C-alpha cells in the first residue's frame, strides 16, 4: 500500500473517530472544537489526495474547506454561543452507551452498503467511502438525538463534512463550481441559523427545542 493511501486511511479513521466523539460530547464549546477538528482532517485528507494524485484543482478545494470549516464557520459559531452565553451549558444526553452501540451498528451497515460501490471507484482513496457514509449516518443520528438548536445545527454541518468526504473518496471531489456553491450555501445557512437562534431565544427564553413541540396536529 503506498504511503499516500496509508495516510489517507489514517485520516479517514480519525474522521470517523471525531464523528463518534461529537455524538457523545455534551458541551457546546467542545462540540465546536470537534467540528473544527473534523474540518481540519477533511482539508488535510483532500490535500494529501491532491499531492498523491498531482491534481492542482484539489489544493484549491482543500484550501476552501480549511478556510471555511476550520476558521470561518467555527468562528461564527463561537461568537454565537458567546453572545447567547450557552457555551458551557451541559446538555443532557441519555443512554450514551446505547447510542454508541447504535452508532457502531450504523458503521457496520455503512461499510456493508458501500462495499460494492467503492470497488467500482478507481481512486486511490476509494475504500474511505464506507467511512464517509458512516459519518453521514452518525451525524444524522446526532441530529435526531440532540435537543438544543445549536447542536442540531452542528450535526447538520458535520453531515455536510461527511458528504464532501464522500465526494473526494469516489471522484476526487465535485467540479469547482459546485464546491463553491455548496460552500456558499453552508455559510449563508449558518448566518440564517444565527438569526434564528436569537428569534427562538427571544420567544422561548431557551434553545431547547422541546419547547417548540407543542404545535402537533
Amino acid at each position, binding site marked *: 500500500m503506498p504511503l499516500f493511501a496509508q495516510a489517507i486511511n489514517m485520516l479517514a479513521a480519525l474522521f470517523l473517530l471525531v464523528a463518534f466523539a461529537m455524538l457523545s460530547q455534551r458541551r457546546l464549546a467542545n462540540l465546536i472544537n470537534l467540528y473544527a477538528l473534523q474540518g481540519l482532517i477533511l482539508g488535510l485528507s483532500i490535500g494529501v489526495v491532491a499531492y498523491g494524485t498531482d491534481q492542482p484543482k484539489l489544493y484549491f478545494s482543500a484550501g476552501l474547506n480549511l478556510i471555511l470549516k476550520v476558521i470561518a464557520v467555527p468562528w461564527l459559531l463561537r461568537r454565537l454561543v458567546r453572545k447567547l452565553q450557552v457555551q458551557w451549558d451541559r446538555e443532557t444526553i441519555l443512554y450514551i452507551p446505547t447510542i454508541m452501540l447504535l452508532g457502531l451498528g450504523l458503521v457496520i451497515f455503512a461499510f456493508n452498503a458501500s462495499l*460494492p*460501490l467503492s470497488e*467500482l*471507484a478507481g481512486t486511490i482513496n476509494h475504500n474511505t467511502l464506507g467511512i464517509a457514509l458512516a459519518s453521514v449516518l452518525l451525524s444524522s443520528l446526532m441530529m435526531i438525538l440532540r435537543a438544543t438548536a445549536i447542536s442540531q445545527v452542528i450535526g447538520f454541518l458535520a453531515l455536510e463534512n461527511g458528504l464532501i468526504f*464522500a465526494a473526494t473518496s469516489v471522484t476526487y471531489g*465535485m*467540479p469547482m463550481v459546485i464546491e463553491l456553491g455548496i460552500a456558499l450555501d453552508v455559510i449563508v*445557512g449558518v448566518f440564517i441559523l444565527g438569526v434564528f437562534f436569537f428569534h*427562538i431565544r427571544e420567544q*422561548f427564553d431557551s434553545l431547547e427545542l422541546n419547547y417548540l413541540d407543542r404545535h402537533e396536529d
Partner: protein
Amino acid sequence: MSLLWILAIPLIGAAYLGLFGHREHAFIANAAFSLTTLAAAIVLTQRIIVHGPWLTHDAQFSVDPFNIFLVDLTAFVAMTTAIFSRAYMRIERYSGRVTAARLRLYHSMYQLFSFTMLLALLTNNIGILWVAMEGATLSTALLVSLYRTPASLEAAWKYFILCGVGIAFALFGTILLYFSAHSVIGPHNGLLWTRLNQIKGHLDPTIVSVAFVFLIVGYGTKVGLVPMHNWLPDAHAEGPTPISAILSGLLLNVALYAIVRFKVLADGSLHDNWPGALMMGFGLISLLVSAFSLSRQRDIKRLFSYSSIEHMGLATFAFGMGGPLASFAALLHMTVHSLTKSSLFFSSGHVAQKAGTQQIDQIHGLLERNPGMGWSLMLGSLAILGIPPFGVFTSEFLILTAAIHQEPWSLPFLILGLGVAFAAIFGKTQSMVFGASNVPKAPSPPSLIPSFIHLGLVLMLGLYIPPILASWYTHVAGMIHR
C-alpha cells in the same frame, strides 16, 4: 440572451428590493419585476416554439419541452402571486403585523426565491440544480418565520432542518450519480443532464439504484412526500399567504421535476422499473395519509397544504406508473394543481385576514357579505376536488384511466384517497361559505382578480388544452417513457 434575462431580472429585483423593499412603491416594483420575468419567459418560449430545444452556454443551460412549460408556469404564478401580495402585504403592513425591515426582507427574498426556482428549472447541471434547491430553502426559511410568533418559528425551524437534511441526502445521491458517470466518461461533463442522458445505458446499475434512493428521499422531502412531509403543513400555515401560494405552486413542482429528471436517467440504467415502483409507493402513501389527515385539520391553510401533499402524491404516483397517458396526465396535473392551489391560497389568505383567524370553525357565511371571496373559495375548492369541467377533473380522470390499464391494484386506493379528500374539503368549505355570516364585510375590496384568472385558466384547461401545450406534454411523456 432571453435565457439570461429570465435569471437576471429576479436577481436584480432581489438586490433592488433588498435596498428599497420597505418603500411604498416596493409593492408595485415587486409585481413589476415578476411581470418582466414573465415577459422574458414568453420571449424564450417563442424561441423554443420556433427553433426547438435549446442547449446553450457550454451546455450549462438546457431548455426543452419539459422545463419550458414549467418555466412559464413558474413565472406566471410568481407574477400573479406578486399582484396578490401587493394587496395582501399592504394590509399586513398597515395593520402593523409586519415591520418595515421585515417587509424589505420579504420583498427581496420573494424575488430571490423566483430566481432559485427558475435556475433550478433551466440549468442542465445537476450540481447547480442542487445548489438552487438549497438556495430556495434558504431564501424562504426566514419568510416562514416572518411574523415571529412561536408557532411560526417552530415551523421555520422544522422547514430548515428537515429540508436541510433532505437536501443533504439529495447531494449524496448527486455525488453517487456523478461517480457513476465518472467511471464512464471521466471527470468532464459528468454532471450535465443531457450528457448523462446520452450515456445512461452505460451507468453502473448498482450505483444508480443507490443514488436514486437518496435522490427521491432528498428531493421528495421538498415535494412533501410522506413520510418526509412534516415540514410542509407548518411552513404553509405559519408563513405569509403569498409564500404559501408560491411554496405550493412552485417549489413542490420544481422538486418533483427534479425527481422525474433523475427517474429518466435511472430508468435508462436499470431497466427494471424499480424507480417507477418506488415513486408509485411514495405517491400512494402520500395520497392516503394526507387524505385521512384532511378531516382533522382545523386551520384553513393547513387544510389546503395537506391537500397539496395529496395532489403531489397523485402526480408522483402517475409519473411512477410511466407510459404516455400517465405521464401526460401527471404533467397536466402539475399544471392545474399549481394554478388551483395558489388561487385557493389567495382566497383563503384574504378570508383569514378579514376574519382575523385561520380557524375553520370560526369562519361562517362568507357569501353573505363577501361574495367575491366566498365564490373564489368555493369554486377553488370544487376545482381542486376534481369537479368537472375544471382541469383537475381531466387530469385525475386520465390518471385513473391509466391506472385501470397499467396498475389495476392501485385503483381502490386512489379512489379511496380522492373520496376521503372530497368529503373532508367539501364539508369544511361549505360551512365556511354558506350559512349566516360572522365575518365583517371587507373594508377595502380584496385582490381576487389573480384568483379568478387562475380558476379561469384551470377551467380552460379542463375544456380545451392548447395544441402547443398538448404537444409539449406528449413530447415529455415520450421522453419519460422508457
